[in-house]
């Protein structure tokens, strides 16, 4: 069963008289539990696709259903609730709040929930332990290495137990050893049944995905569904 279903999605950006088409007539269905890699050259529409999936940028036309919910049919406030309950974001530049320590950063999505403070703290602690940072909870982001910051960001994206994890080049700014740690962690999550969609430039990451799509000019040029090996050769 598809967790995500995009139909005839177009996204155009207008800049004065210029019109840039970021996504065109894009159709995509992603099953629950999939680790989907999104690749493509710069300007191919990868980030726009992630933004549309993340309920952050409404498409110019077409529909986006996640867990059978027409997400762009929701009001702004309901979209915010949807993001909080269904989506976890991992950003390339970590995007941690600099004045909050690791534990507080992880608790951030829970700050507006009705859970008790003890429950919030327990969830955040468990999540930091899960990503291997049990002893760095009270450190501020600037006191953490790049890899540790990425792991805090992953813990924050998971603390609400979202069905879908969206990652935008999470290894883009990391060295190869740290990248490997992060990909191992994401793979573990995937093996636990987490649906993950990850944008990446790095072809070395292909082996981690169980499905990869290659975008060009806002369209899916290649889709590895069912034939990952030939896809790998093709890209």
């Amino acid at each position, binding site marked *: 069963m598809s967790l995500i279903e995009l139909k005839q999605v177009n996204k155009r950006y207008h800049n004065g008289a210029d019109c840039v088409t970021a996504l065109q007539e894009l159709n995509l269905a992603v099953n629950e539990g999939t680790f989907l890699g999104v690749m493509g050259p710069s300007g191919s529409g990868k*980030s726009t696709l992630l933004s549309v999936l993340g309920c952050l940028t409404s498409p110019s036309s077409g529909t986006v259903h996640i867990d059978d919910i027409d997400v762009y049919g929701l009001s702004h406030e309901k979209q915010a609730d949807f993001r*909080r309950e269904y*989506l976890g974001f991992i950003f390339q530049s970590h995007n941690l709040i600099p004045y909050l320590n690791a534990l507080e950063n992880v608790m951030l999505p829970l700050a507006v929930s009705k859970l008790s403070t003890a429950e919030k703290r327990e969830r955040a602690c468990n999540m930091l332990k899960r990503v291997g940072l049990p002893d760095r909870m009270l450190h501020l982001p600037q006191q953490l290495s790049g890899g540790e910051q990425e792991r805090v960001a992953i813990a924050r994206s998971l603390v609400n137990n979202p069905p879908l994890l969206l990652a935008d080049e999470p290894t883009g700014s990391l060295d190869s050893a740290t990248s490997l740690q992060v990909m191992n962690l994401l793979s573990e999550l995937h093996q636990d049944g987490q649906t993950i969609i990850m944008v990446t430039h790095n072809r070395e990451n292909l082996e981690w995905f169980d499905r990869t799509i290659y975008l060009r000019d806002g369209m899916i040029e290649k889709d590895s569904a069912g034939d990952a090996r030939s896809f790998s050769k093709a890209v």
Partner: protein
Amino acid sequence: MRLEHIVLHNLRRRKGRAIFLVIGLLIGVATVVTLLSLTDAMGQRAQHELENFGANIIITPRSDALALNYGGIQLAGVTLIAKELEQSSLANIDDIPNRRNVATIAPKVLGAVEVDGQRIMMMGVDPAAEFKLKRWWSIAGRPVEQGHELLVGDAVVKRFNLNMGDTLIVNNQDFTVVGLLAKTGSQDDQLLIAPLDVAQATLGKQGQVSMVEIAALCHDCPVDDMVNQLQTVLPGTDVQAVQQVVKTRMHALGQFRLFAWGVAVTVVIIGALLVFVTMMGAISERTREIGIFRAIGYRRQHVLQLVLMEATIVSALAGVLGYLTGVAATLVALPLLDGGKASWQWNPTLAVAAVFAAIFVGLLASLQPAFRASRLEPSEALRAL
């Protein structure tokens, strides 16, 4: 972890901006508190003086004749037989509706007496009321109390070369000088002042008074109404309000109060603009942060709450510190402005109003930046996805 934790952490992290905001509003609040406290203190001082020093209503017997003196200059050779008031009629003053506003009733009897072949004015007074009313009198010795005692005006002292304890024969009666009145520059210098009953007997005016001075508590009381009320209960008298000094002083205070409000409003507007500009800057600085909040599922109202909560905390702090600074400034300025006579008094209404006004101004100035922040589209704010 709640929204207020994020706000407090942010304020701690951006201490410089928070302190700048607090100081901006604090100056406004302190200025308002100082100016209002000063005008209040001086107003109360003026009222206190009005209540305690001097009469502001004078009752005299009605006379059909016009006055034949001006500025102390008596038309030579002309004498008028003055009518008198019945002392017992003064009890009617208790019946006026504004009796509560009457602080002191000082009846006097006036008449000419002969001393050593010379005619001098004697004034009989109710010692308790008169000396309460004439607090500016400087007396060597003591005021008259009862019996044949005299308080002697400066001109009379010089004319007869009197000293304390001297005996003066007035209308063939012995009076003892118990007090010498220092020069006042008024007609009081020409008087022999005796207890009312003794003077009435000496002048042959038992049970009569020549005039009555009334001190009314007149900050807000309707003096004109009181004049009419007194006129009604004391027929055959002229009741006049001596309002010129009061009005001049109150007018000056009113002008100062107006000026104070003008300055206060200007300073508060500048403070509000400062908050507005700083908050707008803060929102721009925190655009990415707001994008993160929105991306992880914060509603617009949550972002609005974050900004307004921050403004409330900063403004409340500025209100409290501004009030305390204003009080300190008032305590320093009062002795310089009013010769140390006015005193500061704790005004809880002003304290509460200062804090709430600071919060109101802070919130008002932060509304637009807060709405701007809450309207930021997460994707625009982030630029990361």
